[in-house]
């Protein structure tokens, strides 16, 4: 099935979780634009919060996977 923008969904069934990365980036940029007094500090602060979100999500996913595996073994 060919992809028609806005009509068909993006064919990313296997890699949907990677779409959380640009979402996190957008959230980081807007949040820091609102929060920072000076726009000059936004790129650095947004990069820090972006990395924090990504690392936090990866750790949460790993922890949940561990819990799931543990429950499967019981």
């Amino acid at each position, binding site marked *: 099935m060919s992809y*028609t*923008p*806005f*009509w*068909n*969904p*993006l064919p*990313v*069934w296997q890699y*949907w979780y990677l*779409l*959380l990365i*640009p*979402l996190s980036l*957008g*959230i980081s*940029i*807007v*949040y820091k*634009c*609102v929060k920072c*007094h*000076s*726009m*000059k500090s*936004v790129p650095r602060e947004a990069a820090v919060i972006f990395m924090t979100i990504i690392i936090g999500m990866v750790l949460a996913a790993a922890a949940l996977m561990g819990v799931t595996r543990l429950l499967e073994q019981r």
Partner: protein
Amino acid sequence: MSSAPERSYSPPAPLVALVAWLIPGAGYLLIGQRARGLTVGITILCLFIGGLLIGGIRVIDSPWIESPAQTAERLRREEISKVHLNPLQSLLQKPWFIGQALAGPIALIANKIGVSWERPAATPPAATDRDSATLREGAPFSHSRVYEIGTLYTAVAGMLNLLAIIDSAYRASNQNQR
């Protein structure tokens, strides 16, 4: 150091809030914070349009803007269940739309386009039963993860715009008090 405005006149906060809802980031532009306004506006619009590209235009699904096929289906269900939902109850059935609508009129326009969009000529009609084939359905709904991610993108864009609306209105009121 600060990108604070150099203007002497500052528009009233409610006007700034309204403009910020109409066009994401425009509230900051109105109070003279150009870099902040452009960054916020472009990011929010990219997230919103990204959501439409990921899940299809029907990720914007309001309880009040329906295709003729959706209306017929809703009426049929109401007739069977004898339950008629008021507008607030309908909204609570589709709570994601609250977030999506905060992105501004672009959400309403996308919803309207989605329900009235004709099937592309190359694609044959998929509906097999006579009733749904005769009633216009609009663009198709996507399913599964891509629908969820598309909905998430558009709703998050709207909620970030709410943050920008509140902040730009607050900054405008602070400027007025000085």
